[in-house]
């Protein structure tokens, strides 16, 4: 149900993150060449790269969860068959929503503050604003909450026998 709404967004975020990874490669190479050949590195590369990793992680988080890419150890639960899997899906969904909910709850205010106050990391010419990363952390986590809740509902329906256990819980 909510999948219809979230899926395009999730895929868009995946594409953006992938593009950032691709671009990082070029940024790093430009920095190395600039430093090695022209003795002038691309200023702020380390700051930009480290900021990007946070952004990449939380852009990718919704896809990781929605596509079933999150690592898990379901050997023991697997012994209980479809219901066992549905149970661990339910637990993952509820706890996952709670955990990422904490990130949203705790991160919103600092993200707003970072935007308003112009918080930055680094110094001098190398200042990188903090708000984009803080914002992506909150937004990505919020989307993950929705996805986890939807998965929990689905798993609950399986447990209650209102839906058949899907072959691929993905």
């Amino acid at each position, binding site marked *: 149900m909510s999948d219809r709404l979230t899926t395009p967004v999730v895929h868009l975020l995946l594409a953006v*993150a992938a593009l950032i990874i*691709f671009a990082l490669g070029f940024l790093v190479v430009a920095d190395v060449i600039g430093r090695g050949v022209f003795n002038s590195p691309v200023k702020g590369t380390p700051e930009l790269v480290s900021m990007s*990793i946070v952004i990449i992680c939380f852009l*990718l988080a919704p896809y*990781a969860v929605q596509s079933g890419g999150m690592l*898990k150890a379901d050997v*023991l639960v697997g012994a209980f068959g479809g219901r066992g899997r549905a149970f*661990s899906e339910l637990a993952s969904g509820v706890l996952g929503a709670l955990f990422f909910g904490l990130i949203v709850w*705790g991160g919103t205010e600092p993200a707003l503050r970072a935007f308003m106050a112009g918080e930055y990391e680094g110094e001098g010419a190398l200042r990188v604003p903090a708000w984009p990363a*803080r914002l992506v952390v909150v937004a990505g986590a919020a989307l993950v909450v929705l996805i986890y809740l939807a998965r929990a509902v689905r798993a609950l329906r399986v447990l209650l026998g209102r839906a058949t256990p899907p072959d691929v819980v993905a």
Partner: protein
Amino acid sequence: MFGHSEMLIVVLLVLVLVFAGVHIAVALGITAAFGIWLMMGDLDVVRTFVSNTAYEALRDYVFAVIPLFMLMGDLLAKCGAARDIYALGHRFSKWLPAQLAAATIVSNALFGFVTGVSIAAAATFSRIAYPEMKRYGYRRDFALGCVAGSACLGMLIPPSVLMIVWAVLTEVSIGKLFLAGVIPGFLAAFGMIVYVVVAATLNPALSGGAPESRASRTVPRAPDLTVGPATDTGDPPTGLPSEAPLGPLLRSTGLVVALVIGVLAAIWLGLCTPTEGAGVGAVGALVLALIKGITPREIRDVVIDVGRTSGPLLLLLFCAQLYSRVLSMTGFTEVAKAFLLATGLGAWGILAVMVGIWFVLGTLIDSISIILLTVPIFAPIAAHLGFDPLAFAIIGILAIETGLLTPPFGLLVFTVKAAAPDKSVELAEIFRGAIPYWLVLLAVVIGIAVFPGLATWLPSL
């Protein structure tokens, strides 16, 4: 005492959740959050800490190595590097008994320099090497075990995601840890080759030879093959000509290996940081792929795929940092150290306990999660006992790697099963075939424990 109950809860809860099948990142994260709540009794503190760590934990230059090395490996793999390497290994091992199996191992060792994850190797060689071995009448478990077992080399030979994660957690140099893996990696490869050669000599039926006529291997036997006549000119399922012209093969493989070795050497020689090396490697791989005619569509697929695989990994890293911080706040690391030292097991006994724990966890959980769960606790203890951090890291990585081959959760075995074109293959067969490789890894673990120089010598140069 109050403090001890906190740490027990934090340790036990995560294990319960992990074994209940909860996503490992979530298990780590929610346990960490709960641990803080136990300590502080204040939800505001919990949410501040969790969200702040979400922003801070990954904000480090070094984490860019992960997606960038993946990008390099995937690009090179996409443009046929594995196939070229295999064709080459095939050419150069003609004189060996069980030649195709040996070629698979050699190719995996070489391909190990390209890929940072073992699964990629397992999937690729299931499609390239397995049909070839089958065509020549290798016994199925022998062939599949070889593909799964030698795929372990991908994580042991640099670059390796496991090494990167380990280095990040323990703050040892990534470059040095990469170097430390080289000799043990080759040693493992050598041990595996010795195994296939000896096994095939003792029992020629394993590698498709009839007990007496296995001397004349130039005429391949293909008793169970229905896809056309058995000639040595070409092979429809893999498209791998066993007599491909050497020149182009050497050139393309040479370029790939030169790029990767060049990048690794630059890191080892201190010409660039691991992040820069990975960036240069990724862009270099793109150039190579473009030369080899990769299409924009394929590039897009590779890049998106890197996004797919790095997402769960980065999340796991964030949650593990959160967890390990909370674990050290409860004081568990100190208590565990004191406890283990008080058992009177001695350094070797404690090492054996750790390796045992890795084996057990390895049968159930994926390698990276195991590192994230255990290394923050084990590494300080090992350091205290006087084990060299590099040798200890390689021992740990090897011990954890063995879990990829053991039931019930053997990631490499599953991958081979899923990727093998032959759908009648059974998991049990592959698990059985991989046992000798498991033993080889174990032997290398013991070797490094006794002679740490195997791991520490190269980085000390």
